């Protein structure tokens, strides 16, 4: 065992999800509780032993805080609770830290997403989808761009990437089609029955050029959760444990969503390097990369950071593309987002990337199983809200 307080000492011992769908017919609170109950049942930990609870709270849309979940599920022994910023891997990494520090013994970490009326015209017609009023402006800069429609700096960042490096829309297409093809093999995915070819992708109308609706994650009703405990306690539980090698998040200076979205790569790179430094691994030690795909353009820069190829994602995606299967295989061996990602499975802001890592490392991924999967890289989010981790089979 290493001196690192996390490596090999913390385990994920349960996973659970609500139904993922365009309309779950349940409140966001009920969805969160569906996921938390399922994860606790999966772990075999008795309800009374659960003493840590961490959710994702707020950002652009309302979420559910730990007090609601504790009250709704009769969890009355919580001695550590927390609200983390999105993306989803952040609530998981908070639970990892809490268990490593001894703040609690069994932490449940969850996130719930909902197709609020802020998402689409269709959702606005549904009285069950009215978002509670609330403001979210952590960079304090929204008033300065309201008169021009609060334009998304992440889209401008990708325009700049195309300008500097010659990146093209068909490069994004390889990411999208890869994830959508994997989603066809995932019964839970909202795009399970919706094949998408490269021709379909290239013909799609552009919403924010060069991005189409296919480049943006699928808004859904859905929640996911994991149970975390020490590696020692995990050995006494019935299921197969998955161990944490390292987790991190990173901010590298300029990060204002609306004015300075251009240095996202620097934060990704800082995070990835931290994971390599903590473990001694490199990308070739990974058997699967669950790269965050809230927008396909974010995935493209995560790929650059993970494979250390700044400005060359286009070439790497071309070299890694198998046109026959419509999938990516990096370095001839490493698949990406076997669950379908946010683009194919649905938008729980990266939680699916953690869940799929656990399934693959337990050998529970069914027709998607990566033979001999021993280590998985998970990345989540953008700058400055991001998280990443390396998980391994226990």
């Amino acid at each position, binding site marked *: 065992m290493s001196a690192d307080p996390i490596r090999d000492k913390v385990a994920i011992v349960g996973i659970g999800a609500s139904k993922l769908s365009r309309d779950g017919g349940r409140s966001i609170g009920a969805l969160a509780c569906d996921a938390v109950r399922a994860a606790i049942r999966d772990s075999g930990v008795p309800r009374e032993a659960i003493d840590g609870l961490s959710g994702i709270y707020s950002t652009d849309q309302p979420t559910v805080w730990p007090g609601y979940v504790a009250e709704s599920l009769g969890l009355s022994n919580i001695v550590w609770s927390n609200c983390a910023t999105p993306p989803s891997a952040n609530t998981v990494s908070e639970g990892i830290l809490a268990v490593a520090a001894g703040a609690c013994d069994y932490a449940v970490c969850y996130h719930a997403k909902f197709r609020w009326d802020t998402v689409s015209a269709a959702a606005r017609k549904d009285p069950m989808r009215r978002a509670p009023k609330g403001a979210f402006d952590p960079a304090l800069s929204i008033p*300065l761009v309201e008169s021009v*429609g609060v334009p998304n700096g992440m889209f401008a960042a990708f325009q*700049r990437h195309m300008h500097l490096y010659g990146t093209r829309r068909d490069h994004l297409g390889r990411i999208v089609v890869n994830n959508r093809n994997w989603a066809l093999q995932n019964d839970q995915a909202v795009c399970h029955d919706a094949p998408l070819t490269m021709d379909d992708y290239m013909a799609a109308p552009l919403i924010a050029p060069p991005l189409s609706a296919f480049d943006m994650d699928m808004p859904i009703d859905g929640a996911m959760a994991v149970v975390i405990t020490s590696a020692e306690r995990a050995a006494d539980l019935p299921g197969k444990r998955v161990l944490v090698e390292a987790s991190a998040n990173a901010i590298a200076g*300029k990060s204002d969503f609306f004015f300075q979205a251009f240095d996202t790569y620097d934060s990704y790179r800082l995070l990835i390097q931290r994971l390599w430094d903590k473990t001694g691994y490199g990308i070739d030690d990974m058997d699967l990369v669950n790269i965050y795909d809230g927008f396909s353009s974010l995935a493209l820069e995560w790929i650059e950071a993970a494979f250390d190829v700044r400005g060359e994602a286009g070439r790497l995606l071309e070299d890694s593309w198998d046109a026959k299967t419509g999938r990516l295989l990096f370095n001839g061996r490493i698949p990406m987002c076997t669950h379908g990602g946010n683009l194919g499975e649905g938008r729980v802001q990266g939680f699916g990337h953690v869940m799929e890592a656990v399934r693959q490392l337990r050998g529970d991924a069914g027709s998607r199983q990566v033979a001999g999967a021993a280590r998985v890289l998970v990345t989540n989010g953008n700058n400055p809200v991001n998280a990443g981790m390396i998980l391994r089979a226990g």
Partner: protein
Amino acid sequence: MDHDTRTYWEGLAERKLTLARCGDCRQWIHPPKGCCPACWSDNIGHEQPSGEATLFSYLVQPIAPGGAPTVVGWAELAEQPRLIVVAPILDATAETVRIGAKLTLEWTGDGPYFQPVFRQEAQS
């Protein structure tokens, strides 16, 4: 509007781009902050940049119901690398907008706060 952005808004009411600038190390700061990110000085003043800029990037703004798409620019001011004002690029389209184009500052709107806008100089 808050304590840090009040002077910026007051400038917009007079069709003047008025940006925060550190009184000690002379760093321009936008969006405005309460202290200087470079030297941590609290001595934040305000000055007017020349209005000369280069197009750093842009977004063809998603089409509003009934409205034409507009090109929103990230204008990098001549005064300092990555000193960026986000504003519409007048008369530009998805076909004519060019990253790296020289920009000049103009004003639109009916007040009380006027809208800074930029126009691409003709390609020479």
